[in-house]
């Protein structure tokens, strides 16, 4: 790949009323990375996720997702980008109640233009992949919290998007289920999906190859300021040049 999966350049996002949620943030995430954006609440990490997920547009700066300059895309084109390129995992799962797991996952593909049988086929495969092949007919209220989050992850990856954005994926789970979900995300990353996890939990962040720490709308530290393929430490490399 000649371009990064995510590239933010001098991105600021100011809300009406003057609250600056992001202040001149620059970030590059390569294809195949597994990274955490970690910070206390109010640090701007959720805004960052929304901007990366193209759900929100920056006030200034440029955002490239999978090589596309977001500012040049219309609302419809952004929607198509989300449908094919980005999978979302939310803290509160956002599953439809009274709908079996299989249909919850299959309905997530309704905006991709796939036929219904194809959507169901892919949904079944995705549920198998997250280890819920035996729970396809269960409705959300019949599943544990960890299982629900697995269904949500299956929905996010059913369309095989190159990028998965997870917003506090373990926030509503006990530690055992949380560990299971994190293992699953690791597995997905191992098969090539770029995964960005937003969390306030330093312990979870510490288990990931790269951590981007945020505070007050700025990046305060990045464990891999240089691309991970470059030799450690980065300071030595750049000093020579």
């Amino acid at each position, binding site marked *: 790949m000649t371009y990064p999966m995510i590239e933010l350049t001098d991105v600021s996002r100011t809300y009406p009323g003057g609250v600056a949620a992001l202040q001149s943030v620059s970030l590059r995430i390569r294809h195949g990375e597994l990274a955490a954006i970690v910070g206390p609440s109010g640090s701007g990490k959720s805004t960052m996720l929304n901007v990366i997920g193209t*759900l929100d547009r920056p006030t200034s700066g440029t955002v490239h997702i999978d090589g596309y300059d977001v500012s040049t895309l219309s609302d419809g084109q952004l929607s198509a980008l989300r449908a094919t390129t980005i999978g979302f995992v939310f803290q509160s799962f956002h599953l439809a109640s009274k709908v079996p797991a299989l249909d919850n996952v299959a309905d997530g593909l309704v905006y991709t233009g796939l036929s219904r049988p194809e959507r169901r086929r892919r949904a079944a495969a995705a549920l198998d992949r997250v280890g819920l092949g035996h729970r396809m007919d269960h409705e959300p209220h019949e599943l544990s919290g960890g299982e629900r989050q697995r269904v949500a992850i299956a929905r996010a990856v059913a369309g095989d998007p190159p990028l998965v954005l997870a917003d506090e994926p373990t926030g509503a789970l006990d530690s055992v289920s949380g560990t299971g979900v994190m293992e699953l995300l690791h597995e997905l990353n191992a098969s090539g999906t770029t995964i960005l996890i937003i969390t306030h939990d330093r312990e979870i962040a510490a288990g990931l190859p790269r951590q981007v720490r945020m505070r007050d709308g700025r990046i305060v530290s990045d464990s891999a300021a240089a691309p991970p393929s470059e030799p450690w430490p980065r300071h030595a490399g750049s000093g020579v040049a």
Partner: protein
Amino acid sequence: MGIEVARLKPSPARMRLGDVLRVGAVGLRTRPLRAFLSALGIAIGIAAMVGVVGLSSSSGAELDRTLSALGTNLLTVSSGTTLMGEAAQMPEDAEMMIERIGPVERASSVGKVSEAKVYRSEQIPEAQTGGISAYAASLDLPATVGATLSSGTWLNAATERYPAAVLGSVTAQRLGIGAAGVDTQIVVGGVRFTVVGILNPVALAADLDSGVLVGWPVAESRLDFDGHPTTLYTRSEEAKLESVRQVLAGTANPEAPNEVDVSRPSDALAAKQATSQAFANLLLGVGAVALLVGGVGVANTMVISVLERRAEIGLRRSLGATRGQIRTQFLAESLLLSAMGGSGGILLGMGVTMGYALYSGWPSVVPAWATVGGLVATLLIGAVAGLYPAIRASRLSPTEALSTP
């Protein structure tokens, strides 16, 4: 700096119709009671309108059936008033003269015996006449006006000479007589008459319903009847009805044709129908108001639905739904809701029409334009009611929608 890549921009996929309907039905499935109630509002409005149209069409069809059974070729000639405002008299031989008009197939006459008051018995005070009139009637009267007997027999050549009477349906009711019989007697002009028959209601000669019909000879011999007919009933060839109508007055009373009133009773029935049609239009208006209220109910449901489902809208946007697809979803939901209500209402209205028509012995008719119009009206209402909430849903910012708990 960003690396610009020359690639086709992604374009949103079109949703198939089946998916549009399936996604539109999501809200109805998750809140079935609410969907049912707001569909019910539409159903009541449509049922009211279809029912009103159905009932008035059915009663119209019934009238057509009645008219074709009764015939529209009956003309009546009644002695009107003189220029001075007094009751006019037709000549005694008016019936014979009318029968000489070529296209007249049949003519019968009745003569009102105004002095003869009718009582159930001699014990009834004289003032209580009960609004019943006595008529001398010619023997072929039932055939001409299409009268049938509910009980007993019509007068014949023998009984018309003796105190025998046939009662109109209203008269029988007022006097409290259920069946004719030799023991049943009433008092007409101070003379006891035996009730030999009771008529069914006569649609084309409603005057006879509140009358007591006796033979022409007995009226002259016992009731001081002057022998002048007061009303003549004629049946003519349908095609020449207008020509007959024009000469009828002059023939019945050649000396004073202007004192004679000629009328066509079937016109009166049709006019009555037109009056009830006006009333039906009023009811149709009431139905339209009910439908409008139903539409407001649907709009209300949709607004609440959009407010409640902000998180779902946010999720769908994150899954790749465009604004247009969100708008379509809620519009489809509103259309489904009102289409359900509309078809339910049409069935309900047809059921009411058929039930009432069956009960009244009418043919049941629901015009196709009422059903199609009802469905079109509901879809229009669904579209209008859903448009604003759908636009609101589509304008919702995805991040705001997702942050809703």
